[in-house]
């Protein structure tokens, strides 16, 4: 057992910052300390854009952190090392190479002789269940088969550590389930030549199903919010009560984090640092209606909602967060509860909804009031989008700023607060709106 506690790869005080438009650093990862030990599958969980993929790439030596170090086999890691292999979300197969050649590509890079490479590739293909597809090109394969090639390519190099970046999220539900089960079977039977796995995911059930330990990241910047050991015996079943309890706990941790971070961001920089989620008005209205109706009657657990709407948590969270920001609903302890205004919204007609949405937008999203004020002050009442982009990028990274402005443009247009012309890239007041 003592051997099992040895860390294979260790992340020490990892910080990562990207440059803002003004040149100042914008922290993405803040002082991350973690290690991966022999024999375990570790899950990295967090909201989208929380920096978990960046962290995985740092662990793989693909990106160098701003400060801190990655220690692999007792030496600091500065570039991709032999013994670490990555499975990509988008598969990253070379479309011009056949399945066999794709698997061999990783081995050629090791400088193995042809026969040896061929043999190992073949073994790996057999193991992952790709036999018979050797001469196919990736474009001929289904998504599930493509990801199997990704697995075969990674295991062929016999890595100590396997890094997986949302490996099942580009697959449909059934395919993902098959691949997960197959992977877990090989893992439990010790057939994989790898000693430890680090896996990024945003699917909480998947994480609880597969991992021995979960590391939950908060966002803006990402810190380790919680570490959840999962000691359920394998094979695990989603139907067990204990399984459901752990999933609920993780949801609560994530929502608590989200609420705390929303509150904190709203209170700094007069609320201009508040990033808005990618949530369309249609989706938010739809969620309000569903929440208002039976069986939910105004309140629902997020995981129940997610599975009944067959939405991934990554799709559901932004909508819930949008409702929370606009105070049509409240996110708390892994549940979403309609506010009084939310109930009114559900009952109103189109005009009533617009009026209510406008009020809430002006009251709870300070950026809206700011844009309206600027439009009022300006001669001609036309303001280039760039002005707000620059302002937002003082507080947010470019990606978040863009998403925020897009969301606000759509919301503002729906609320008939202002108009936006994409040709001139400028905001303007509506003639009939105040």
């Amino acid at each position, binding site marked *: 057992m003592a051997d099992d506690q040895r860390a294979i790869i260790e992340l020490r005080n990892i910080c990562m910052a990207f440059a803002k438009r003004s040149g100042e650093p914008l922290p993405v990862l803040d002082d991350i300390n973690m290690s991966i030990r022999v024999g375990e599958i570790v899950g990295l969980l967090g909201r989208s854009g929380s920096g978990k993929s960046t962290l995985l*790439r740092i662990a*793989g*030596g*693909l*990106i*160098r*952190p701003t400060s801190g170090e990655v220690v692999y086999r007792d030496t600091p890691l*500065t*570039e*991709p*090392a*032999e013994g*670490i*292999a*990555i499975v*990509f*979300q*988008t*598969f*990253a*197969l*070379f*479309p*011009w*190479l056949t399945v066999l050649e794709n698997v*061999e*590509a*990783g081995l*050629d*890079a*090791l*400088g193995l002789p*042809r026969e040896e490479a061929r043999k190992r590739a073949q073994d790996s293909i057999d193991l992952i269940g790709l036999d018979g597809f050797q001469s196919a*090109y*990736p*474009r*001929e394969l289904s998504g599930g088969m*493509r990801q199997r090639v990704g697995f075969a*390519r990674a295991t062929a*190099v016999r890595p100590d550590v396997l890094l997986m970046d949302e490996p099942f999220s580009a697959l449909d539900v059934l395919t993902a389930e098959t691949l997960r089960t197959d992977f877990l079977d090989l893992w439990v039977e010790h057939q994989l030549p790898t000693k430890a796995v680090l896996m990024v995911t945003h699917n909480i059930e998947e994480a609880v199903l597969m991992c021995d330990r979960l590391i939950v990241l908060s966002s803006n910047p990402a810190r380790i919010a919680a570490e959840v050991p999962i000691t359920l015996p394998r094979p695990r079943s989603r139907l067990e009560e204990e399984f459901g309890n752990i999933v609920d706990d993780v949801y609560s941790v994530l929502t608590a984090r989200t609420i705390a971070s929303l509150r904190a961001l709203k209170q700094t920089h007069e609320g201009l640092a508040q990033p808005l989620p990618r949530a369309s008005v249609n989706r938010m209205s739809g969620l309000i209606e569903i929440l208002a109706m039976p069986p939910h009657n105004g309140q629902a657990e997020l995981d129940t909602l997610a599975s009944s709407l067959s939405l991934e948590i990554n799709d559901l969270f932004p909508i819930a967060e949008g409702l929370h920001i606009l105070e049509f609903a409240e996110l708390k302890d892994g549940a979403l509860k309609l506010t009084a205004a939310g109930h009114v919204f559900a009952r109103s007609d189109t005009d009533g909804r617009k009026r209510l949405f406008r009020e809430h937008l002006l009251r709870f999203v300070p950026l809206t009031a700011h844009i309206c004020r600027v439009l009022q002050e300006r001669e001609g009442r036309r303001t280039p989008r760039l002005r707000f982009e620059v302002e937002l990028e003082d507080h947010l990274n470019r990606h978040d700023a863009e998403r925020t402005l897009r969301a606000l443009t759509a919301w503002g247009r729906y609320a008939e607060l202002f108009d936006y012309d994409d040709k001139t890239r400028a905001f303007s007041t509506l003639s009939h709106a105040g």
Partner: protein
Amino acid sequence: MELHAEVLKGGMWHPRAPNWRDLAALMLIVAIIVLIGSGTRQMLAPLAAAQQPEISLSPSVLPNYALRTTMRMLVALVASLVFTFTYGTLAAKSRRAEMVLIPLLDVLQSVPVLGYLSFTVVFFVSLAPDRALGAELAAIFAIFTSQAWNMAFSFFQSLRTIPYDLDEASRGFRFSGWQRFWRLEVPFAMPGLIWNTMMSMSGGWFFVVASEAISVGDLHVALPGVGSYVERAIEARDLAAVGWAIVAMTVTIFIYDQLLFRPLVAWADKFRYEQTAAAVASRSWILDLFRRTSLLRTAGESISATTQAAARARLSVRLFARPLAGRKVPSRLLDVVWYGLVLLAIADLGWVLLRFAGAELSWKDLFDAATEGGITLLRVAILVVIATLIWVPIGVAVGLRPVLAEKVQPIAQFLAAFPANLLFPIAVYLIVRFDLSPPIWLSPLMILGTQWYILFNVIAGASAFPNDLKEAARTFRIRGWRWWRDVMLPGIFPYYVTGAITASGGAWNASIVSEAVSWGSTKLNGFGLGAYIAQMTEAGDYPRIALGIAVMSVLVVGMNRLLWRPLYAYAERRTRLD
């Protein structure tokens, strides 16, 4: 010649306002041309009137001539590939190199190809002890200039748009630089590269014909080939011989296309990055033959096994490797030094140019050249408008009928590849015969060869027009002018712009051989910048050739930057739905 076909192939292409780098690059190129030209002029004077192989007008020599012409094309193709792999790679891998190389490339592809020829022919002839070889090199160089820039650009753009995940996979699995180049970079760039090569090949035929028979001052070169054959036929006023040459060229291009490009395109299909299967697979009977015939297949496989082994070897010379991981903050000091050096070089060349121009040219020369440039500009503009009015409706009509489009498209592509200068003598004969006004009737020759780009791009656009939009237009009974304005024209616009860019670029190039022509001893002058350059070339007046080329380059760059690129960017922005 600037061909922006790659934009439709998914390449990125950002509009850029003209800036100081363009000016610097332009100066650099003109200065180098001037230096080479004036340097070799003296060296060559005594050699001027040497013996030339006699060009026969018998149709029986044509197969041999066509073969010689084709060989030049092939050699130039290989040279262009070598250039592409080195220049494109260097520009993509080094930020500092890119700063210099890319504006340079941008201007290089705007300089009229035949403009290079006037200077380089003298240079190459002086290089080679055997005169014929020198002239061969010059002709090959002319073809090279008509395709190398495009290919390098396409390769550079591919390297810059390599998908993030493939880049990470190749780094994660620790490919060596050599492996990365052959396993990732070249395959990824392949479809764009082949497409561009094919597009510039059309230009290549034009220039190989033009460059085989050329006179610069006292130096007369006539290489055995189809171009010289036509030149000789013009001198002899032999219309039948011109006809034979046209037949020979047609057959040659057809064979070249079938034996080389069709197989290449079909083969390159597997390098497409999109993970979906192609709707229409490219086919080539030659490739099928290779794949199906066991003897040929064995031969093909052993070749491919060897090349594969070479590509797979680690060869860990870290020549091309770019350490992306944790890209270091670029050293400011080195940047400053590098900028300094570049500025110094530009200043130096500017000084050389100024001294050269000051000694040989006056303001009046500039005024003359600019006026002639204005005439040609007007001509290009009018011709593009006329070609648009003719070919857009026809292209749309054809494109909307898939069966017809399938038949017309290869013909249009063939016509674009056919060197129009072979047809000039017929037009000139008619002008002489009916005593027409040269300045007007010579004009259409400029766009004779390149108008087809408008046609086949419009056909492509109309064929790709979404079916649901067509149906929507029908359901709502949108007809007549409204249908053109709201439905079809916006739909084909990006395609049209691509075609028009190529057509107008080609017209500028063609102006040098089409504005001043002859039939036997009759000389017709249509006026314009092309005629100006042609006359100065004939007279061996280097300063004025350089001036003419510089003015033309400025006009072409200006037109691309101020008209075509903004138009393209606009088209791309407006017709996208996301």
